């Protein structure tokens, strides 16, 4: 459906995108995630043909998009884009949603039906005569979605569609997007800085940091098996312990750190400098040293306990810092307090090893 090859883009001396290669299949939801300023918006603007790349090519259904304005317009008519902070025309909600159809020379009853349908889908029936500029942020975003989907684009581009919204509007828009994707055969390329949103919506994800796609894969893969320290940090791997592989036997390695050894699964060789990544939810806490199949058990002192929602984040000092995520209920039943000594355990399979 969409293929991007060796795409580079600069504004003056600032290089925004470096050597981007990307492919999106028909019917797929591809999400680029990355921190603010990583080039996500620029990538979407290039794919949306709002700007021309400094170098590189974009293919749409196998055809390279060339430089002629006519060809670009022809391709642009098959896509639609919703931006982070959509602008609405100084007109009614109806006229805003009808815009894309009118410039495609549609009118009369079919235009009316399509617009009303789109408004119903986004839950804005009855709003058609409202001045679009008096709407709230969430409503404006819904008008923008309706305006884009009413033209039935083959490729829908969504640039951080919930970045400026409150949590309720965010979940509403997310549900809408899921709905729209399910009901139509639209292909979606979306960007977000919210990794959980990416996880909820994406079939495949690409991590865009510093203008480069560092890893692509399905969401589970990216979250559990980040390929580098930058990605691991971005996807929220809180425990990243630096060390060196001291021994390797049958796929199990000993990673030697300052005063501790962590066992992990890895095919890296002895002497490699690595990070052992352990997601906080993989760590089990116990008051006493009990027999367990977990290969890694450390004794440490609780430095801090932070409660949020139903969870408790327990920060420990085991000779190295370690963070565990457990339920609030467990923390209460175990009567965990700052200063307590505690055993933290995790399995060798719960450790993801990244080369330094």
């Amino acid at each position, binding site marked *: 459906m969409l293929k991007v090859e060796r795409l580079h883009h600069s504004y003056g001396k600032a290089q925004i995108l470096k050597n981007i290669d990307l492919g999106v299949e028909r019917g797929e939801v591809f999400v680029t995630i990355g921190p603010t300023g990583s080039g996500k918006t620029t990538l979407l603007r290039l794919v949306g043909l*709002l700007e021309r790349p400094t170098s590189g090519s974009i293919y749409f259904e196998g055809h390279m998009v060339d430089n002629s*304005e006519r060809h670009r*317009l022809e391709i642009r*008519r098959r896509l639609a884009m919703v931006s982070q902070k959509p602008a609405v025309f*100084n007109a009614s909600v109806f006229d805003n949603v009808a815009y894309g159809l009118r*410039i495609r020379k549609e009118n009369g009853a079919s235009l009316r039906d399509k617009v009303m349908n789109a408004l119903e889908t986004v839950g804005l029936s009855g709003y058609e005569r409202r001045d679009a500029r*008096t709407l709230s942020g969430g409503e404006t975003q819904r008008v923008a979605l309706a*305006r884009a989907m009413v033209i039935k684009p083959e490729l829908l581009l969504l640039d951080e569609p919930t970045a400026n919204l409150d949590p309720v509007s965010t979940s509403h828009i997310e549900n809408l997007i899921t709905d729209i994707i399910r009901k139509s055969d639209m292909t979606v390329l979306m960007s977000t800085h919210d990794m959980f949103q990416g996880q909820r919506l994406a079939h495949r994800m690409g991590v865009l940091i510093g203008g480069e796609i560092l890893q692509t894969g399905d969401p589970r893969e990216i979250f559990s098996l980040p390929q580098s320290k930058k990605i691991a940090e971005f996807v929220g791997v809180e425990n990243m312990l630096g060390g060196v592989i001291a021994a390797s036997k049958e796929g199990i390695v000993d990673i030697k750190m300052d005063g501790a050894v962590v066992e992990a699964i890895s095919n890296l060789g002895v002497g490699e400098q690595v990070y052992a990544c352990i997601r906080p939810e993989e760590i089990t806490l116990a008051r006493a040293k009990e027999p367990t199949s977990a290969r890694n058990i450390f004794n440490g002192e609780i430095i801090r306990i932070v409660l949020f929602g139903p969870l408790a984040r327990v920060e420990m000092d085991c000779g190295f810092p370690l963070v565990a995520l457990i339920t609030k209920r467990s923390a209460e039943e175990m009567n965990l307090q700052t200063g307590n000594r505690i055993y933290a355990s995790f399995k060798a399979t719960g450790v993801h090893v990244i080369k330094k």
Partner: protein
Amino acid sequence: MHYIADAFVLALKLIFTGDAEVYGITARTLEISISSTLISALLFVPLGCLIYFNNFRGKKGLISFIQTCYSLPTVFVGLLVFLAFSRAGPLGVFGIMFTPQVMVIGQVVLVGPIVTGLAISALSGVSPAIRETAISLGASRFQSVWAVLKEARFAVLTAVMVGFGRAISEVGLALMVGGNIRGYTRVLTTAISLETGKGEVALSLALGFILVALALIVTVLANRFLRVKEADVAQSRAPTS
């Protein structure tokens, strides 16, 4: 003092009894000014778009030049048009000197910079996101420009009205290229100037009242449009729930 009061009463009489001279001059004035304003709008709003939406060397300089021309002296424009259209001038072959047509041409030249310049300001008041939105929804270049123009409609209309105000109130050009021919090229301003010189103060006053009334109507309408726009803006800036 007595004499001014008499003239004042006579002036009102002329207006309210439907004096043929007064209304003939008024009708001709409107005809000429409205023609020149419409032609200016058709020529110079697109020119404003062309300048605003294209990037070229000397764009800033050109805009400054256009703005300088807002206050072009009417007698100077009159002189240029006179030189161009007089028998010996380059456009003398048209033989339209001292006709309403040449007055319209002169007023178009006079009003052109105002309409162009204010149209550019009007367009630059529209967020660039509007044009991008139009483009991202599949608009062609022309359609996207139209979307921005539509967004700036109140400010563009104001630009045209300001142009009309200048066209209807100028006297130097109308006198020089129109010739103030009774029943043909005599307009409100030239008539006032002539009648005052002749001592016909009552007629001058009557024409003056009408001129002021017309100018007032234009200003009020322009302000109304401006207020509508401001109210819109205020509304769009209001905190959203």
